[in-house]
Structures are given as C-alpha cells and as structure tokens.
C-alpha cells in the first residue's frame, strides 16, 4: 500500500482578471520509506506541489480538483483541526532558506518544544529531553546550550540541521524538503544531504525532495518526477531518468550541464524560456523549445504514458528513442 497517493492534483491562482493554472493534473504515488525527487526549473510548479501536499496553499491560490491521499485520507478535504494533527507530526516539511524559516524572536528550545507539545501530551522536561536527543541525531554540538539560543546566533548550516531535527521530532512518515540546501554552500550542502539521506534510511521515513539540481536528485532519491510548466512530463526510477532520459526536455536539461560537455566547447543549450503560467502555448507546453516538435505537438497535449521503464508525456518519444539508438550505433 502506498503512503501517499496523489491523483489529478490541480492548483490554480486567482489573478487580476483570470485564473492561472499553476499545477495541472499531477498524479503520483509514494511508497512507505521511499525517496522521491521532484525536479524542474523555477516556475515549473515543484514548490507548489510540495506545499499542496500539506494543504498549505494560501490565497490567491487554491486546489481546484484532485485528491491527495495520505493513508487513504484526503488531505484536500481535511478539516483544519485534522490538518493540524497531521502537519509536523506524520508529515513534516523542511523549508528552503534556513535564515528566514526560524522565528527570530523565539529560542530554538521554544520552537522545538512547541512542536512536540502541540502533538503529544508531554511535560516540558520530557519534551526537552526528546529535543536534545534529536539535536544529537543531527550532530549538533552541545545541544543543551543550543536550546537557549536564538536563531541569529547560529550559522545557516546549523539552522538547517535544527530544522531537520524539528522535522524528525515526532518520527514522521513523510518529510517534504523544498530545496533544503539551495541557500547553503557546497560543502555544507553535501553534509546536510548526507545527513538527510542517512536519517531517512535509518528511520524508514519517506522523502519528497524538491530541487532544481539533477546531481542532488541522482544521489538522494530512488524515483524522480520531472516537471515543466505545471505538469509532470517524465517520471520513473532516478537511475533510468538520469542515464536514459526519454523526454526531450529532460534530455536537454541533462545535456545543458557543463559536466556533459568538453571544457571550452559550446554547451548544448535549450533555446528559449519556460513559458509563463499566464501564457502556456497550446499542445505540448514544451513545443516552442523542442527541436522534435511536430504539428501534433503544437495542437494536442500529450498524455503521460508508460514507455519502457518510465512514464513520459511526449508524442514523439518512439521516434526520439529510435534516433537515439541510431546515434549510439553511429558512435
């Protein structure tokens, strides 16, 4: 049985004189303890997906249709009280920028204890002990002292560790991490990612990792969704997607990385820009930037279909595959 099952999730934003579809018919499943990456560029809808899973979309955005089944219970239809029980307890979230995630006027201890005491009947002392244990788990030195400190006294990496500790406080079944290391330095990013991976594996916690960095996805996750303009365009096992991407956009994204080209040579760029949500072209949203686009692509939206090991939303996937195979033979 899957832990999380998302069906046809559609999120819209009410703008000046129209409603804009930010998330369009997203469907995916997550098994217990599974790690899933959601990749895409800014504006693809990956962060909105993360917030929608916890029903945290606020005005002017709203969930238009679809369901998010967490243990067969629809998060979209939950009462506020039931949502509060779930958030921070069975489902925890790690935000993007640790410098602004913690409340500047409350101590680390206050912010950890309030989370515990909102969900469990615990005395302050019991809660404190749990907080200290969790801070140790994320390798925070002298955790007792940290509890009395304010966020501004700690570095960004330290704060993100504390946020991970807060996420783990109530032994959640699912952690949603929205670009957890984008605001951090490379060496710190590597430490945090390793820590997150280790904790998810040892505690059998499901992870949804939202990122723009294919390298991170490759190291951290078992399965990957690639998003473009509010839709999933490719989904499957991470290895398959990295090694043998099927959708022209995924291919372009991987090929555009400097590692994929010899130094000094021209990078294989994807032309153009991601369409803005108010102005998504008809047919396949990627068609104006796609070198394989046909008339069909310009008029009809491709359904996401099973192709080999992955699911992919592209009319021309067979032709592409054949060409790819031919090129490989040539080479």
């Amino acid at each position, binding site marked *: 049985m899957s832990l999380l099952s998302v069906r046809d999730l559609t999120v819209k934003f009410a703008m*000046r004189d129209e409603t804009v579809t930010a998330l369009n018919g997203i469907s995916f499943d997550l098994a217990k303890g599974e790690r899933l990456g959601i990749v895409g560029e800014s504006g693809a809808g990956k962060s909105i997906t993360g917030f929608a899973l916890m029903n945290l979309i606020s005005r002017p955005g709203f969930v238009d249709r679809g369901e998010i089944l967490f243990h067969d219970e629809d998060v979209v239809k939950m009462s506020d009280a039931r949502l509060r029980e779930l958030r921070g307890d069975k489902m925890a979230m790690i935000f993007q920028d640790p410098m602004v995630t913690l409340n500047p006027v409350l101590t680390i201890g206050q912010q950890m204890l309030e989370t515990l005491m909102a969900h469990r009947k615990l005395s302050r002392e019991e809660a404190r002990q749990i907080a200290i244990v969790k801070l140790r788990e994320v390798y925070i030195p002298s955790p007792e002292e940290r509890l009395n400190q304010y966020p501004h006294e700690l570095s960004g990496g330290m704060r993100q560790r504390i946020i991970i500790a807060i996420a783990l406080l109530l032994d959640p079944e699912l952690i949603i991490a929205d670009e957890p290391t984008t605001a951090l330095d490379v060496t710190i990013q590597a430490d945090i990612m390793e820590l997150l991976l280790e904790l998810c594996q040892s505690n059998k916690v499901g992870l949804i990792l939202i990122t723009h960095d294919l390298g991170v996805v490759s190291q951290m996750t078992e399965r990957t969704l690639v998003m473009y303009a509010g839709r999933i365009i490719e989904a499957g096992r991470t290895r398959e997607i990295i090694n043998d991407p099927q959708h022209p956009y995924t291919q372009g994204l991987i090929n555009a990385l400097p590692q994929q080209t010899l130094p000094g040579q021209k990078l294989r760029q994807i*032309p*153009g*820009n991601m369409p803005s949500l108010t102005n998504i072209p008809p047919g396949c949203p990627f068609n104006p930037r796609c070198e394989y686009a046909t008339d069909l692509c310009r008029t009809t939206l491709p359904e996401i279909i099973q192709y080999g090991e992955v699911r992919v939303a592209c009319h021309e996937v067979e032709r592409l595959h054949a060409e790819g195979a031919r090129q490989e033979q040539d080479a």
Partner: protein
Amino acid sequence: MNTETVSPTMEPSRWSKIVNSNMAYSFRRNPVAVVSLIIFVLIAAAAILAPVIAPYDPYDPMQINIMNSEYPPAWIDGALPEFMLGTDDQGRDLWSTILYGTRLSLMIGICAVALQAFLGISIGLIAGYIGGRLDSLLMRMADIQLSFSTLMVAIIFLAVTQAMFGSELFNRYAVFFLIAVIGVAEWPQYARTVRATVLAEKKKEYVDSARVLGFGPGRIMVRHILPNSLSPIFVISTVQVANAIISEASLSFLGLGMPPSQPSLGSLISSGFDYIFSGSWWITVIPGVVLVILVLVINLLGDWMRDVLNPKLYKG
C-alpha cells in the same frame, strides 16, 4: 545565434500603456479611490475658483455687516435666503468664507509639502548616497527632530515668533510663517523615507553597473536612483498634504496661524467654537466637515496609492 523568434507585438501607444497599466486598472476597480478623486477635484476646483464662485468677498470689510452675524444655514428656521450656509460671528457669508478658507488651507498644505519635499529629498538623497558620518549626523538630527513632533516644534516656533513680532505683523505674514514652519519641521519624514529607499536602491546592481560605466555621482543620483525612489515619495507626499492641512488647522485653532480676518478652515472652526454653546453650531461644524472631507479623501487616495505601489516604507 539565438532562437528566440517571438516577434515583438505592436508597440502600444503611450496613452494606452497608461490606461492599461496596473495603476489605472486598480484605480478603476476601486470605487473608493474614484469617488475620492472626484471629490478632491471638486473641492480643489471650488477652492481655486473661489473668487469666481463665492457670492461675497470675505476679505472685503465693505461687504460685511456685523448685523448679519450668526444667521443659520438655509434649511433652518430663521435663515436669510442670501446666506446659503448661514453667516459667522462677524456676519460674513459662511459659504464664501469656507471657499476662501479651503483655498488657503489647501494652498498652505501643498506649498508646505513642496518645501518639505525639496528639503527632504535633497537631504535624503545626499545622506543615503554619500553615507558615512554625514549620514549618521543628519539622521540623528532627523530622529531627534521627529521625536519632538512637528506640531510641538511649530507651536513653539510660532508662539515665540508671535510674541516677538507682535500679532499685527505676525498676522500679515502668517501664511508664510505657516508654510515655512510646517515645511521645515517635517523634513525628517521625507528625508528618512528617501534615504531608506536610496539605501535599498544603492545596494542594487544597476547602481554598481552605472559606477563601473564611469557615470558621476550626480548623474547616478538624479538619473538612476531618484526615478526608482518615486513610489514611496508619491505615497508620503499624499499623506503629508493631509497632515499639513491638519497641522495648519490645529495651529490656526490655537491662534498661532491664520488670523480671523483672513480665516483658513482652522481659524474659522476656532472662531466658531466660542458660539457652539449658544447654539450657533454651524460656524464650527460646517467648516469642520469640509476640513474632514478634504483630509479624508486625500488620505483615501494615499491609502489606495500605498496598496498599489506597495513601497517598503521606512519604519521607526
């Protein structure tokens, strides 16, 4: 080499750009703003055209008959039909006096704000752009001056001036004293807002880019930073006009502003206050209502502007 083939659409004309802009759109969608602007324009027009509209000239002693004093407005028993809103304690036609008074209040308000804006923008730009000791000195001064409040500074200044010059001389130049004191006393509001915006803008890379291109500080301040600091200046200018009108009225009410012979709305209210207990409420209440409506529509426009432009105003 690039494949962005999206051809530019027809260049829209300047006028249609204005009409379709965010600001015009939100204006049309906001009935409060539309009504406020209409009322403001009506009041301003009436004030400017006061000499044409007003049936009497309140400054002309020949047209005033003390025997006509304290007639009620036309809809109350005992009114004289030629005085639509009744008369004041000196027998002046209240409608004409209010028109002239509004004219004075609005003029003092706008001129004082123009003076504030000139001082505040210059000081704010220089303090923000040059920074360092000059900046901290100017801002300390602004903080201290602000904590004493405009009204307090104005009251003390005008009280001393009046005592020094005697009321006759003071009354003759009251308009200029008021403009000067309200204009000078409020410079910190502007200076701090402008400085905060300048500091925020100075950090942006287009200023660095201009410096790397070798432009001088004058050009960078006026051509690059100032145009990007306009939204907060617009917003506070509106609010400041409203505040200046209130300040003028308050000072005149205390007898430190416009004299009763040349009344602004504030001095009119003040002179009527003594008659409120004898039942002649209109001398106070009608100019009071006009004053409130004038200030209210300006504040409503300021509110709307703040919502649309959404500038980060300097706090504290």
